[in-house]
């Protein structure tokens, strides 16, 4: 079943025809050539495919492209700051928040989305009092970033990078 859809990807409208079976991740990578969304597990378990979907961090490997006709998607590649790296990407560079780099685009998108969630006052499982505001300590960062696995184990530096941006 082919369906015509449009996606607004990293600042540009892209029109494409997809089979209904196509995931958003495969549409980005295989159809639109946007390679910064990575495929790790393809089952929602690793976070490598995380993008900002209509402004919120979301995994794309279990999302059907046809269900997101008209959506706005920002991948790590589209997260720039007037030609310079986005502050979160820069902090990952400054703190060696990666080794192989495969999980990094997903980590960066996830961190950007996470910082917005904290700004909006959203609690996490480790927030002591759900009715009060959130203080983004290391325990909070780790819990909130737990949807992004890093097989190289760069977690310590990822936390450091995010801690710096959050300051």
């Amino acid at each position, binding site marked *: *079943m082919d*369906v015509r859809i449009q996606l607004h990807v990293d600042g540009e409208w892209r029109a494409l025809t997809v*089979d*209904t*079976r196509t*995931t958003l991740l495969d549409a980005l990578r295989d159809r639109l050539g946007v390679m910064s969304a990575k495929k790790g597990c*393809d*089952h*929602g378990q690793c*976070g490598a495919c*995380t993008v900002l*979907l209509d402004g*919120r*961090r*979301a*995994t794309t490997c*279990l*999302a*059907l492209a*046809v*269900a997101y006709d008209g959506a706005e998607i920002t991948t790590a590649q589209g997260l720039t700051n007037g030609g310079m790296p986005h502050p979160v990407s820069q902090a990952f560079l400054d703190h060696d928040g990666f080794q192989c780099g495969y999980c990094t685009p997903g980590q960066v998108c*996830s961190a950007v*989305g*996470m910082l917005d*969630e904290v700004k*909006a*006052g*959203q*609690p*996490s*499982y480790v*927030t002591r009092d*759900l*009715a009060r505001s959130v203080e983004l300590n290391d325990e909070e960062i*780790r*819990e*909130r970033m*737990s*949807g*992004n696995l890093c097989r190289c184990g760069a977690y310590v530096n990822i936390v450091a990078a995010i801690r710096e941006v959050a300051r």
Partner: protein
Amino acid sequence: MIPFEYLRAEDAASAVAAVASRPTAAFLGAGTNLVDHMKLGVASPELLVDVSRLPFDEVEPLPGGGVRIGAAVRNSDLAADPILRSRYPAVSRALLAGASAQLRNLATTGGNLLQRTRCVYFQDVTTPCNKREPGSGCSAIDGYTRYHAILGASSACVATHPSDLAVALTALDATVVVLGVHGERQIPLADFYRLPGDDPHRDTVLEHGELIIAVDLPDLPFAARSTYRKVRDRASYAFALVSVAAALDVADGSVRDARVAFGGVAHKPWRATRAEEVLRGAPISDESFLQAAEAELAGARPLAGNEFKVPMARNTLVAVLRELAQEEAR
């Protein structure tokens, strides 16, 4: 994955009609469980009716003091809702204990309640499984049972229900509001999920084509003193080995009323009515809490790989009740 048609539902009634009239049709929330199952070959619908954008996306007060949660409210939005956080914190915390933030931003309330077991054999089409393929046998009973049931299981199936949200909602007496071809009906969550019996194929009492449109939480003032604790193999982003949702009403050093449910121990969220009975009127003490836990777990029948769950469930309940008893009144 087999080819399928996709339809974005215009309204609830037409969504129900579209799915009810076709045995191979299914509702689609965010797809975080269903699309996974389609990839694995566990589900193969020929028509998906997307109900994730129907206008059931609000949390609103009900006359009488309760709260209605729309079926399309995203897990992250529900967890962050101010009413839930202050009046039903166990529900917020249960949601926050589930999956990851980037999945919760997508996942819907309706889809969360109807996610299916994470039994490894259920998800592996090369192995026998009565839930996936009735009559084929249960690979788990003599296999890997770390995540399986200790209460209410049958010789046909020993799977557990994976939803954290459902455990908190079960503890707090929630009701599921369902639309079918013959109209609306309300099903208390306590009667919504089934035990496996001879027919583990069915997780719930829903008929094909029945659409969840909302979940109602009753007015329960002492639910402001409620919480959810989840014990797992890693600190985060893992399914429960055991979990506990509880609410406690305390006065003058004793328990006036309590609501308790276990997760990770049965084919459904396990409402611990025996524990609640022991707690009502009991003095606030570790002994009372232990007695309550033991009363509920007396019927536990662990499998070879999950005997640890009995003390784990007991200790988790005691710890949660102790924490709630010490919490300042709101």
